[in-house]
């Protein structure tokens, strides 16, 4: 699952990918006309809204791609970099950059692109940017408290506004379409040479309709985690996808045998695990199955993965979820730990065995009861958790 960094791509290859991404970035910026300061500044005078069109179309394209890839399970939305929010510095920085834009006619990305085709004002702008960073660096100690205070973390905009993700995306796309229409109208009024005069009207209307359809899809697009969790909890889905079970006897035998090909996954909360924890069991919450830090333990090859909980209901969900996430050899402890207690830990023979098989079973359970109780006491109720080895992805421009 993407992002390919840090697990699938080394740092060197990642940096090389940055070069390739940058070449595409610079090429598109120049083709879009972002290498012209008058065109960029024209945004603020109603003469040329190219910047607004490119900027918002790009944001919506990337945003839709991120949401769709996340829904398809191809991109881990919890792993990608989300800009952390520092409200005061974000506003002040934006205001200072706004002045920089209206005075300088570029932003850093476009100035580099314009410098590449020989705009002298762009080269000077880049030098100015470099000097600005040095100036900031020298003055930094006097306002580092302001810059680093009030860290609000990687807040999502729809949470800040208190709306659902789908509603916000729908609003954003409709607002962008309205802005495209309004600015084209303004531009044609104010600028007789506006590029928008030559736009193919029919194609643009069709594209707008397509974008509205995409907005509708994104509005109803469920979060992958939520939809998978709901799916495995649905009785209809459970009936259609019968899980495979492991009996308490087999589990007891394999635990006592310290079978290296057995992985016991305990889905109960920590409180319940204190009262009874199977030796070697791994404690994992149900939604933890999505997280990267569990992939190593869960993905061990040639292993039978047994999900346990008190009554077998949550472990059934865990097993179905694990199968949906692509893990194989998944089992559910039949009857849950309640059954395991009854048949192993608190085993009482019901009377003299009538068949040879029952005699064997009685003997095994009586022995297992003693051994298992001792093993559990030795393990001191501790279930292990995999160590967090998630590497942080760097991002942003700081």
């Amino acid at each position, binding site marked *: 699952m993407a992002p390919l960094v840090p697990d699938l791509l080394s740092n060197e290859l990642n940096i090389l990918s940055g070069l390739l991404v940058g070449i595409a970035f610079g090429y598109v910026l120049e083709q879009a006309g972002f290498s012209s300061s008058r065109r960029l500044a024209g945004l603020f005078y109603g003469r040329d809204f190219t910047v607004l069109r490119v900027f918002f179309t790009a944001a919506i394209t990337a945003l839709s791609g991120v949401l769709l890839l996340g829904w398809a399970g191809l991109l881990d939305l919890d792993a990608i970099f989300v800009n952390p929010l520092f409200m005061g510095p974000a506003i002040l920085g*934006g205001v200072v950059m706004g002045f920089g834009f209206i005075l*300088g006619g570029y932003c*850093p990305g476009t100035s580099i*692109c314009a410098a590449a*085709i020989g705009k002298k004002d762009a080269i000077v702008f880049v030098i100015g940017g470099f000097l600005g960073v040095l100036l900031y660096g*020298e003055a930094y100690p006097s306002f580092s408290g302001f810059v680093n205070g009030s860290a609000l973390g990687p807040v999502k905009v729809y949470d800040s506004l208190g709306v659902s993700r789908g509603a916000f995306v729908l609003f954003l796309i409709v607002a962008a379409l309205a802005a495209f229409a309004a600015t084209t109208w303004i531009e044609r009024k104010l600028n007789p040479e506006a590029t928008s005069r030559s736009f193919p009207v029919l194609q643009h209307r069709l594209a707008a309709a397509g974008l509205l359809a995409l907005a509708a899809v994104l509005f109803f697009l469920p979060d992958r985690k939520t939809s998978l969790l709901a799916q495995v909890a649905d009785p209809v889905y459970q009936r259609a996808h019968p899980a495979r079970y492991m009996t308490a006897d087999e589990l007891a035998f394999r635990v006592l045998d310290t079978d290296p090909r057995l992985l016991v996954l305990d889905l109960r909360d920590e409180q319940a695990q204190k009262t009874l924890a199977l030796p070697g069991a791994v404690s994992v919450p149900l939604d933890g199955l999505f997280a990267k830090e569990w992939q190593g333990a869960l993905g061990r090859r040639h292993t039978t993965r047994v999900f346990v909980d008190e009554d077998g209901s949550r472990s059934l969900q865990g097993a179905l979820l694990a199968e949906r996430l692509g893990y194989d050899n998944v089992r559910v402890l039949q009857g849950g730990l309640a059954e395991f207690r009854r048949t192993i830990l608190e085993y009482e023979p019901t009377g003299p065995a009538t068949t040879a098989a029952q005699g064997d079973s009685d003997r095994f359970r009586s022995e297992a009861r003693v051994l298992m109780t001792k093993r559990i006491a030795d393990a001191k109720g501790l279930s292990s958790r995999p160590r967090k080895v998630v590497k942080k992805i760097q991002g*942003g421009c700081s």
Partner: protein
Amino acid sequence: MTARHMNPYLAGVLLGLVLLSAIFISGRGLGASGALKSAAVATMETALPAHAAQAPFYKEYTTEHAGNPLKQWLVFEVLGVLIGGFLSGVVSGRLTWVTEKGPQITSRTRLAFALVGGGLFGIGAQFARGCTSGAALSGMAVLSTAGFVTMLAIFGTGYATSFFFRKLWI
């Protein structure tokens, strides 16, 4: 012969796909001002190593970024922007050597304001932890509040003050 510019919506879709591929491959968005910061840090470490070793701005950078400040994803991405912009200029016949300016000002004035504007962007991008690319555009693509706030502040300020600086451009 100078070719016409690409349709802005098509350019937007392509730019969005470039941004999406950066997120897909590297888990991060595009950027530009970060490379200026890397260049500033590298310059200071070379020119005044004693100062770079004790000034908090440079020390924080070193603890947050392992290795050579120039061997960073953003630095290579910005080198790519130079290459890509140049290639596009070649393809569309737009290579030039001019100072682009409004009709009412001299080239000297234009260059002075470009220097000041660049400086303000360099400073502002440090406060906001990114510029139009790294904070606003990339931040919006991952629906971060920081991205939307910075975007609104940049463009809002541009519009609010554009009247006073109209002589520079029209």
